[in-house]
């Protein structure tokens, strides 16, 4: 049994480990992109401009209402077609390009993460104490200073639990990208299953690895929350 997972040509340990690294890489690359987009969407939804506000809330409503796997296919096929249409329009003699599954995965998962995180961030901004912002203004802070010194540190604290859940969802959603042929943990498992005819064993190992990542994330997030709340008085 154990030799199935040994390192090297005989076992599948190294292939599955490589897949695991691709899964982690995908999630870690998507996180900052999705979070940055999430802040932009949240600012749009909170803006005093009516059109921006509609765009922001419309984006979160639609994006949260459609399945992640559909978003992935829309990006992988749709964006690919669109890029090719532009590319071949500019250089008619060129060969068609393929959108790489990794890039499509990052874009699709970031779009989804942005929609959900925008809601969390919007909620965090709404929970700020207005008195503190007034106090900042009263002692002559500029809007940029208020944002950096008063708003953002507390938005981080309010948003962390929600963002932590979204991170774990993101980690799990990366499994979907195996459907468009990215060599992640899920796909490495599928390849191993195809050759060893031991589907239950290998999918169970894959599940255990995802579970381990989720549990480790929960531990780290609990520490980050404790740190973010260190300045808060306990009642």
């Amino acid at each position, binding site marked *: 049994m154990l030799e199935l997972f040994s390192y090297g040509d005989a076992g599948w340990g190294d292939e599955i480990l490589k897949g695991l690294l691709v899964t982690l890489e995908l999630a870690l690359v998507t996180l900052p992109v999705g979070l940055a987009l999430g802040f932009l969407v949240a600012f749009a939804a909170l803006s005093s401009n009516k059109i921006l506000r509609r765009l922001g809330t419309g984006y979160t409503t*639609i994006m949260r209402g459609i399945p992640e796997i559909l978003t992935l296919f829309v990006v992988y096929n749709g964006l690919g077609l669109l890029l090719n249409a532009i590319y071949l329009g500019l250089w008619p003699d060129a060969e068609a390009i393929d959108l790489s599954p990794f890039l499509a995965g990052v874009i699709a998962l970031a779009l989804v993460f942005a929609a959900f995180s925008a809601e969390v961030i919007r909620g965090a901004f709404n929970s700020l104490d207005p008195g503190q912002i007034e106090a900042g203004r009263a002692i002559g802070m500029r809007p940029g200073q208020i944002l950096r010194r008063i708003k953002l540190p507390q938005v981080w604290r309010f948003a962390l639990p929600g963002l932590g859940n979204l991170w774990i969802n993101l980690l799990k959603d990366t499994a979907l990208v195996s459907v468009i042929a990215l060599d992640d943990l899920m796909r490495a498992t599928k390849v191993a299953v195809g050759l060893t005819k031991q589907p239950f064993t290998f999918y169970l190992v894959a599940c255990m690895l995802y579970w381990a990542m989720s549990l480790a994330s929960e531990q780290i997030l609990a520490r980050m929350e404790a740190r973010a709340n260190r300045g808060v008085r306990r009642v």
Partner: protein
Amino acid sequence: MHPIEILTRFWPQLLDGALMTLKLTFLGALLAGLVAPMFALIRVGARPAAQLPLRIYISFMRGTPLLAQLFLVFYGSGQFRPQLEAIGLWGFFRDPFNCALLVFAVNSTAYQTEILRGGIQGVNPGEIEAARAIGMSRWQVLRRVVFPHAYRIAWPALGNEIILLMKASAIASVVTVFDIMGRTRQIFSKTFDFSVYLWAAVLYLCITAIFIWLWRLAEARLSRHIGARERGVGNVQGGLQT
């Protein structure tokens, strides 16, 4: 092809897919809804040692991708073919619909259990004591006091969970269940027309919107006595408070 033409040509398939999505979602949610109350009671009342298996199950279901769970059951069952044939369950596991339904129900049970646990813990202990004091049996307390309140508290969260399940059911298309997503991929592979994905998105959004509306109606009905009190209907004190 014009987007409208895609719709006029392929609407029977898309409608068929929508029915499959609804069937998967509501059967899955219903099966989970039958088991979750019992599990939630265990999570609230049982000794920590007795809760341990349930906690591990819930943690596993929430910590692993639904796609991996589906593959574990659908492909993984192949490893136990002789044993499953011996007990006559092999036919069940060969059908992708059965596997998807089983996985969704088992997965949703974990989420619904935690949601209901929150609801049960939110019931005012004074009301439970009052029910006991007037001599209700354990079962009567649960049926008449605890669960009606717990469901009212948990109702919005349960609705969210069913919407998440509906969205997650699109994953069944990967094991060749022809739900909305499955039909959409089938039509795309025939036509290479991108607009079919947009129609699929519209379908999912419509289902979500209609579901939210129905769920709110049900919520209003569950809480109608509270609404009546707030409006002051049939209640003198309420009327005086404006």
